[in-house]
């Protein structure tokens, strides 16, 4: 039985190195280009493996098991869907609407497959993760709520976001242990309303500066924008992970705006100045910051998780979702 002792803090560690990843990235990029994108499935597996294996918790690393062939199959299907969309767009706008409706109708189903594939192919200490979310709930969360959100002119956006994260996180499993999620709808509204306040404030400030004829001051606006974007990119993961638990253990995330904005900005500069060669270094830097500011407050021993039933998952869902820019990160 569980004895209630002082929780033990385990910070995630990230051991990836920019140069090491650069060598892997550039060779795989070349092979992907030479094979007209086919090899990118292998490149993707290596990238994920590199990130997973370099992420360590309590002195053990994660592993990614996705097979390039299943990812390639998924990509081909996704590519086919994309062609259907473009063909429809070339023929008539009515057809586009029909195709988009069809895509919207299968999207929740695809997202569930994608979440299953991703979690099923992740492991830690020899135990797989898995996803148990139902299709019915997915249609509520990924189709009904977004639809209502549009009807309410985005008034329900924070609610929908909370429900999506709740669906994703509370249906995750590690072995036979469920993840749980208790970040409230109110706290999502808190972040979104502050964000709205900042954007409105910035717009008013921009207006006042223009009226006062201080065009130089307008140069400050991109900086302000960067910080507002940073606020969103930092506070939300904090809220989400601080509300996520695994069995009796709880996660924490302590990202801060200033270092995040600094890394984001310098990464962008680096990528532009090197015409893209900095991309792998940028990914490593950002990943290190995000991962090393997360951790697990463990109640007792991390060696006590037990395997659950494993289920099959193929890659189609994830790849299709990614092609349509809807990849959902967990």
């Amino acid at each position, binding site marked *: 039985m569980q004895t209630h002792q002082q929780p033990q803090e385990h910070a995630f560690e990230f*051991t*990836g*190195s920019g140069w*090491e*990843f*650069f*060598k*892997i990235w*550039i*060779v*795989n*990029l*070349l*092979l992907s*280009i*030479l094979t007209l994108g086919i090899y990118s499935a292998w490149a993707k597996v*290596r990238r994920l*493996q*590199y990130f997973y*294996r*370099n992420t360590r918790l309590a002195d*053990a*690393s994660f*592993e990614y098991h996705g097979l390039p062939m299943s990812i390639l199959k998924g990509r081909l299907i996704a590519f086919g869907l994309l062609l259907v969309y473009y063909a429809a767009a*070339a*023929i008539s706008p009515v057809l586009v609407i029909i195709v988009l409706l069809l895509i919207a109708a299968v999207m929740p189903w695809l997202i569930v497959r994608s979440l299953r594939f991703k979690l099923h192919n992740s492991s*830690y*200490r*020899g*135990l797989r993760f898995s996803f148990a979310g139902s299709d019915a709930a997915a249609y509520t969360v990924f189709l009904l709520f977004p639809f209502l959100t549009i009807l309410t002119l985005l008034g329900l956006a924070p609610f929908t976001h909370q429900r999506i994260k709740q669906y994703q996180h509370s249906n995750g499993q590690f*072995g036979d242990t469920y993840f749980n999620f208790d970040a409230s709808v109110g706290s999502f509204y808190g972040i979104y309303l502050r964000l709205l306040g900042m954007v409105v404030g910035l717009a008013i400030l921009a207006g006042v500066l223009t009226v006062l004829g201080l065009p130089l001051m307008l140069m400050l606006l991109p900086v302000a924008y960067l910080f507002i974007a940073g606020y969103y990119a930092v506070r939300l993961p904090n809220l989400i992970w601080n509300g996520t638990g695994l069995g009796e253990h709880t996660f924490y995330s302590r990202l801060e705006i200033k270092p995040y904005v600094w890394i984001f900005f310098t990464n962008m500069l680096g990528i532009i100045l090197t015409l*893209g*060669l900095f991309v792998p270094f940028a990914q490593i830097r950002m990943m290190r910051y995000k991962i090393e500011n997360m951790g697990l407050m463990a109640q007792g021993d*991390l*060696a*006590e*998780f*037990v*395997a659950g039933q494993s289920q099959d998952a193929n890659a189609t869902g994830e790849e299709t979702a990614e092609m349509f*820019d809807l990849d959902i990160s967990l």
Partner: protein
Amino acid sequence: MLTARYFDGKTTAARAVELSLEGQEWVLRGDDLELRYPFVQVQISERLGNTPRLLTFSDGGQCEVTDHAVLDQMLHAAGVRRSWVDGMQHSLGWALIASLAIVAVLIASYVYLLPWSASVIAKRVPDAVLQKMGNSTLDTLDKFMLQPSKLDAVRQQALVDAYAKLQPLADSNMSYHIVFRSSPRMGPNAFALPDGTIVMLDELVALTENDDEIVAVLAHERGHIEQRHAMRMVLQSSAVGLMMTWYMGDVSTLLATVPAVILQASYSRDMERESDEYAERTLQLNSLSPCLLATALEKLEAAHLSRNEKLKTTKDDAQDVARDYLSSHPATPERIRQMCPERP
């Protein structure tokens, strides 16, 4: 001897073991533990930098190995060869070669592959699409750049008739019509939209002395249309745009670029030459001298040069427009010699 951490796949408990290869078997030895697995049934994860490697066994158990040197030695002794990708991924030399190769491939595709595939695809684009592109481009131009023509209806009709009399080359399968507009900002100009519409500016009509010169310019523009140059430019730059946005990760900006491409419509030298040749043949077919186009081109260049001079002092944003025209219609003297060798 290789030390590793063993997980049985049923719990997260880790056990320290020693791994060895005995004959055709991997053998794991730890406290009160001895397991044997046939060598060929054990999956060994690929080497990736300094990351831990996994040996996965048929029963779901696995060993995490961080002592890469020893594992490599054992695999080598067992006759397992590294894959060529493995070698490349861990070599600074190959990283350098790959970087240079990527640059070379990108340049080669931009210079050769892109124009070639754009021309192949452009020929197969359905007329409905060309129609839609032509309409929306004209709408955009009308909104931002063009004003209604000040030519009277009789003059317009005369030009339309003159153009209608121009016999097309045999392989023509497009419907053509002219629309009249004026644009002090763009100066004397005419341009072809993908659907076969030619936009003729008042400023060009005013510049030329006789209608045959205008017909010559129209024949040149028809060359652009017939060879689907606008469509090719759109395809080329949207392919580049697609690559860029895919790389930078934003697809939404892609669609916005299409009108901008047609607006700039700076055809390549090759495209201009193709259109010149097309115009030349059309003019000859109609018993008109190719020198007409040469004259018109000369006047156009002179007009734009003098506009440019004036604009330098006025600092109008139209300066960019004028400069664009010149950069997109390069080396006029050379083109004139091509078309009209009998001229001095």
